[in-house]
């Protein structure tokens, strides 16, 4: 009694819209913009997945989530099952469902997307993640201690995902964070209206339940060095995921005027330090009436929208290329436009103008035109002669990218590349044996999910280095057990056994199933 085969014709044709706060209302509060699918929304959207055999979405996902698998569970109303499938590969569905650029990843290659709007994979993932938070679901695997100690530098997305994998592999994991709270860019950078800090805290709690220890207020490199972690502190391996974080400025006149700041500073003051609740919280943030943000990446969008919520009357985006070249997610640009942010495409700043008190009073810009494609493949902006103009603003925020953070280069012998980022091989191993690195400190500024992918990739390499079997070979009840022990052939020795505890299956049953089916 197989269900009727799904075809592109018989699935719901329209992508289920995401319920959102109204633009003009949300532009003045820090509550989440996207409210999340309802159960009904999720069930309808799950019907749109064709369960096609070649699964391009799985290959499109940097961590390789079994996307058709979890969507099938949703369609069968087995939400807990969907959560189990996702957490086999991704510990943080509530985070990734919100901040991944799905349009360039899973949804970008979705088969349905060839004809209709792609399945809203991210929104479904978020629904599952939020359900888990609401219901208190946790998948704690059975972990056999290996005795290995792994130190992780940085508690952002790269560090968190690496920590999860190493903890599951039975290692004692300590994550060091320089800030007073763990979470990295998820906490200080991404604003609450896109990713509430409470969601991040729930995910961090899950890591703690896996046995991961977080040591905040610890600046690795200065309090102790990477080398000391290996030689004195007893770590068998180290993963570095410190992020890039050394904001760029343009070098135009007027950048040291008061009122010029980096997007990192704006976002950190507002998000982590809660300057928006000044004076309940002590951190100040001079709110601008008219704010100009330079750049059009995701960080720029966050800075624009945060400025709006802090009460600015006018918020301008200044970008030297056109909308088509903007590196931000299309959805973010769209949200920003809806909220009343003014975009000035093809506009390049030449000078920040100041008053007698050395405060920002405006900006001088020039108009640009697109010329020949440059090294990045995007058309190079060329200044239009005589197009200079000035406008008034009292705050200028730079969101034009970051350079490599110099601290580890200053404090260890670790090899850097020409731009100052950590140099790694294809397995993310650095020049120091046992020390691996991933995320922005290796690649330069990128996305949360890419950092998470790097954390997991490094975890695989660290396991190989330590001689541990990869946790991706997870014993699961569906796998045939004949002639195999916990899913491994008899020729394999010395593995770390890792099993996922599933509802209704006691560990004892799994253990006794193996030998039984052999007989």
């Amino acid at each position, binding site marked *: 009694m197989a269900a009727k085969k799904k075809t592109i014709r018989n699935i719901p044709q329209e992508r289920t819209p995401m319920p959102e706060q109204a633009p003009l209302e949300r532009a003045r509060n820090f509550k989440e913009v996207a409210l999340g699918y309802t159960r009904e929304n999720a069930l309808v959207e799950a019907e749109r997945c064709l369960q096609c055999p070649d699964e391009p979405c799985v290959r499109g996902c940097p961590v390789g989530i079994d996307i058709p698998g979890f969507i099938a569970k949703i369609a069968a109303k087995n939400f807990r099952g969907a959560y189990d499938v996702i957490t086999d590969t991704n510990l943080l569905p509530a985070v990734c469902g919100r901040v991944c650029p799905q349009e360039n990843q899973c949804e970008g290659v979705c088969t349905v997307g060839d004809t209709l709007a792609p399945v809203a994979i991210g929104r479904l993932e978020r629904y599952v993640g939020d359900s888990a938070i609401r219901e208190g679901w946790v998948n704690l695997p059975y972990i056999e201690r290996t005795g290995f100690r792994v130190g992780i530098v940085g508690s952002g997305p790269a560090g968190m995902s690496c920590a999860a994998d190493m903890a599951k592999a039975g290692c004692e994991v300590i994550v060091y964070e320089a800030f007073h709270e763990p979470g990295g860019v998820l906490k200080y950078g991404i604003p609450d209206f896109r990713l509430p800090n409470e969601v991040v805290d729930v995910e961090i709690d899950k890591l703690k339940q896996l046995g991961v220890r977080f040591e*905040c*207020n610890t600046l690795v490199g200065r309090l102790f060095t990477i080398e000391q972690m290996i030689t004195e502190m007893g770590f068998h391996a180290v993963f570095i995921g410190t992020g890039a974080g050394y904001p760029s400025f343009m070098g135009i006149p007027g950048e*040291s005027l008061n009122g010029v*700041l*980096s997007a990192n*500073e704006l976002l950190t003051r507002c998000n982590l330090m*809660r300057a928006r609740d000044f*004076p309940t919280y002590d951190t100040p943030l*001079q709110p601008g009436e008219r704010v100009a943000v330079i750049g059009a990446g995701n960080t720029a969008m966050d800075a624009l929208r945060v400025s709006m919520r802090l009460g600015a009357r006018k918020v301008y985006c200044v970008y030297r290329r056109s909308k088509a070249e903007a590196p931000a997610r299309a959805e973010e640009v769209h949200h920003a436009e809806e909220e009343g942010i003014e975009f000035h495409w093809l506009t390049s700043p030449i000078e920040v103008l100041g008053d007698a008190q050395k405060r920002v009073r405006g900006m001088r810009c020039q108009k640009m035109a697109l010329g020949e494609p440059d090294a990045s493949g995007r058309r190079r902006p060329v200044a239009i002669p005589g197009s200079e103009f000035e406008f008034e603003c009292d705050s200028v925020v730079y969101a034009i990218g970051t350079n490599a953070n*110099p601290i580890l280069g200053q404090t260890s012998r670790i090899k850097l590349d020409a731009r100052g980022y950590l140099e790694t091989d294809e397995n993310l191993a650095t020049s120091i044996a046992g020390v691996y690195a991933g995320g922005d400190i290796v690649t330069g500024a990128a996305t949360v999910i890419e950092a998470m992918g790097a954390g997991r990739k490094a975890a695989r390499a660290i396991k190989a280095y330590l001689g541990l079997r990869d946790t991706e070979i997870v014993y699961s009840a569906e796998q045939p057990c004949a002639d195999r022990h916990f899913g491994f052939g008899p020729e394999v020795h010395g593995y770390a056994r890792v099993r996922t505890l599933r509802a209704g299956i006691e560990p004892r049953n799994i253990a006794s199933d193996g030998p039984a089916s052999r007989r």
Partner: protein
Amino acid sequence: MAAFEIVAREDYSDVTFMLEIRHPLMARAAQPGQFVIVMQSEHGERIPLTIADFDADRGTVTLVIQAVGKTTREMQRECTTGTALHAVVGPMGIPSHLGQAKKVICVGGGLGVAPVFPQARAFKQSGAYVIGVLGFRNKDLVFWEQKFRACCDELVVCTDDGSSGIKGTVTEGMRQAMEKHADIDTCIAIGPPIMMKACAEATRARKIKTMVSLNPVMVDGTGMCGGCRVKIGEGIKFACVDGPDFDAHEVDFDDLMSRLSRFKETERDALKKWEESCRMRAAADAAATMDRGAPGSATQA
């Protein structure tokens, strides 16, 4: 989370106080010239403070704080021995480069007297001839004179009103020292920007290598926010990771001073609000005492 216990406190004047904080790892790692970032409470702001002393045996680091704004005033009230700070992170910044200095003049002005101490001691230990020049507004504000005497070959104390040592600013002390010693090769100056600027001018003509420690507004202290950027020569540097020590003759002090005034208004408002709440609390306390006192005095009568 680890608590950062205050194991000792000493008040040097009605605005300056010293906190000794238990942090064994940092006490071992700290070097002269480095700083920490402190949060007094969960709601607090992150403020950078230069490390004034560290003792690996006691497992402590010492900070000297001047109560000027809301946060430091609150610390002055709350941070008593036995309490703990919400967060202390460090040591941050590149340690001071001692180099091959033979004869050094270590200048500290006001609160800057404290962070110049580890450098003076390190120079002494490295075998240099150390001349200390300490400046205070008046005799009541003088602190650590004995501590400096122990590690300086010569010490000049300057006060604005002449109530202790010589009368005048630190540049007067420097002038006297430089007149006496023609072979001073290095100068370290830490204090208010206006003082460091004057020190830079005092040594510029003689081409004495002069280092200053900059303490601009910062948030994370790890290079991430860029709030602490300073103009050094033609370039922009971040004081937190590229400094905090810079060549005084390259520093644009006017730029530094203007950037330090960045949050002047919000800071003033915050302080005013805080003082108001202190006043109300004190009034309530006084009223409560009166209430308790009244019946007592009645029975006595």
